[in-house]
């Protein structure tokens, strides 16, 4: 009995201290009344969480075991997952324009996130400026299209090649660095690209952006309509999934994963680290360039505003939310993070707040992502 009351007292004390501390921190920003409300809400929430914890945990473990049994029922051959493309095929027949629009955006982000996944997920090189390649792709495409009048199908390969080359050239010096330093240098690269686009008025039209980009044509037919464009993006997204999947299972892909897991061991096995990292960064930039072209051709207008650091963070969040290194997880992450803001339009102000808190919670409680199975690589 005394042990029980001691537990209750320590629980009360703990909840009280944490709520009081949060309320005090909150005090200068919103005044006394809001701080008191926050204290009350937090205190109550923590008490009820603590109290319900005793009967919640068997419920949770029960649900987890049911989930495990369900997944065991699914066929071993994972190729059935390709059937998931079928619902994607019929989206334009069943939805309003608004939903198709969101779906097109989701497709573009899937390509981007899969590209970043090659660099961060497979090779383990954190890139905080991935948006730079996206921007270079979009701007090369837009400039080729509006200045030189080159159509979609010729401008896109050129723009993608330019992006890949820029990724390659930037990676040559940058890859001498590792870990955090590499991440910071990529962040710097992303910012330099954005600020340059913003200030180089004579070439990029500065903050006003580039407008009047023409829509792609295919076999004499304009892909101007939203549903036609949707299929175009879907086609490229499927190409991305298939190609990245093939490369991942090739010798190159296995070398990337080896480098991620233990670079020194990989070097000892005779894997030329720098060369394979260069492949990885260029390959990632390739897809970012492609996504940039698709974005520019969809929007018909681009400006540096679309290529901020927050955009890099958002793409990174897609990759880590779904699960680093897992293609299905990254696709799910991209779809979730494109759709979620649309659903949460009502509480838009709190969206980014929740994103920030979500990142921290994800890192603490599920660093391998929502759908990732394997734990991320060891400390290095």
């Amino acid at each position, binding site marked *: 009995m005394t042990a029980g009351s001691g537990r209750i007292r320590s629980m009360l004390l703990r909840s009280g201290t944490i709520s009081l*501390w949060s309320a*005090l*921190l*909150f005090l*200068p*920003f*919103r005044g006394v009344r809001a701080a008191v409300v926050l204290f009350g809400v937090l205190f109550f929430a923590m008490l009820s969480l603590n109290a319900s914890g005793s009967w919640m945990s068997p419920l949770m473990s029960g649900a987890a075991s049911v989930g495990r049994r369900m997944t065991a029922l699914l066929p071993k051959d994972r190729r059935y997952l390709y059937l998931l493309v079928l619902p994607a095929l019929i989206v334009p027949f069943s939805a309003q324009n608004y939903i198709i629009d969101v779906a097109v955006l989701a497709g573009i982000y899937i390509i981007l996130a899969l590209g970043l996944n090659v660099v961060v997920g497979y090779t*383990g090189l*954190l890139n*905080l400026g991935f948006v730079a390649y996206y921007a270079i792709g979009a701007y090369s495409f837009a400039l080729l299209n509006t200045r030189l009048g080159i159509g979609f199908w010729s401008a896109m390969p050129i723009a993608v090649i330019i992006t890949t080359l820029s990724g390659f050239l930037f990676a040559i*010096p*940058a890859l*001498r*660095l590792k*870990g*955090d*330093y590499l*991440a*910071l*240098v990529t*962040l*710097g*690269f992303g*910012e*330099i690209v954005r*600020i*340059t686009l913003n*200030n180089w008025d004579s070439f990029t039209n500065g903050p006003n952006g580039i407008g009047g980009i023409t829509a792609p044509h295919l076999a004499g037919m304009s892909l101007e309509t939203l549903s036609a464009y949707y299929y175009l993006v879907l086609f490229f997204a499927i190409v991305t999934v298939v190609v990245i999947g093939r490369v991942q299972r090739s010798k190159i892909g296995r070398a990337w994963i080896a480098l991620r897991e233990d670079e*020194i061991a990989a070097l000892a096995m005779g894997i030329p680290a720098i060369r394979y990292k260069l492949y990885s960064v260029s390959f990632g930039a390739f897809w970012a360039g492609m996504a940039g072209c698709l974005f520019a051709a969809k929007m018909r207008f681009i400006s540096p505003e679309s290529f901020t*650091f*927050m955009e890099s*963070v958002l793409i*990174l969040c897609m990759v*880590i939310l779904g699960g680093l290194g897992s293609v299905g997880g990254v696709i799910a992450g991209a779809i979730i993070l494109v759709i979620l803001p649309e659903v949460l339009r009502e509480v838009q*102000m*709190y969206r*980014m*707040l929740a*994103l*920030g*808190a*979500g*990142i*921290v919670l*994800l*890192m*603490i409680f599920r*660093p391998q992502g929502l759908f990732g199975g394997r734990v*991320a*690589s*060891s*400390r*290095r």
Partner: protein
Amino acid sequence: MLLQQLINGLTLGSVYALIALGYTMVYGILELINFAHGEIYMLGAYLGIIILGFFTAVGLTAFSLPLALGLTLLLTVIFSASYGFTVEKIAYRPLRSAPKLSPLISAIGVSIFLQNYVMITQGATDKVFPPLVSSAGVTVLSTRITFLQASIIVVSGIIMALLHAFIRKTRTGKAMRAVAQDKSMASLVGINTDTIISITFIIGSGLAAVAGLMVSMYYGLVNYFIGYSAGIKAFTAAVLGGIGNIPGAMFGGILLGLIESLGSAYISSEYKDVYAFVILILILLIRPSGLLGRNTEEKI
């Protein structure tokens, strides 16, 4: 003209140096780029305005301006340090033994959270610092230095000297250096590493808050996104001087401030924000250990 730019650069540089110290101390101990550090500086700027506004409302500023400013400084530092302490406890401590990228990503999350926290509670528009401090100054050789600029430089100098003495002379400072050298060894000789890490965050956040308060006085305007660019620049300063190296951070901050103000005067002010990034990239590529840092062998 040149002298004027040097003064402006020195003012800016001493602010960068104060923020850079927080980065460098945390990196020295945890090898973590505390991405949220810039936001603590932003919080400091906001807290300064809020607290001073409160003192004006209750009539303390009219009673005695130096007392009000002193109390504002004290409270700003206490609140910001509490934020820094809390951030470490919630977002970094559970990730001590996680893969190295996890704390960095978590820090980005904290940074996004704090930015939007301030935006929601204080509004997205610029906040104006009450014009309590006169813009008077002296003009020597056609170069104008305001009292505010002079006090920013002097206050930063005093704080940095105190910090240096603290790290060199006190028991806690010695423990901090020991933890920076080898965490497990330090805990074997009876140093509570968790406490030391908390103290590091508290000191770093306090310094950033002082910087934030002074900048909001200097520019008169504050916004919820000032933390990002100031954070990046201060980090650049820390890397420039050699990360983990405390005199290096002071030196790097002042050097960066000078480069930025001279660069925007003589090269192009549009690319003002690029200089820091270019320097960051160049220094990391050419001399990753920084100007004052020592080369460290990679441990296997």
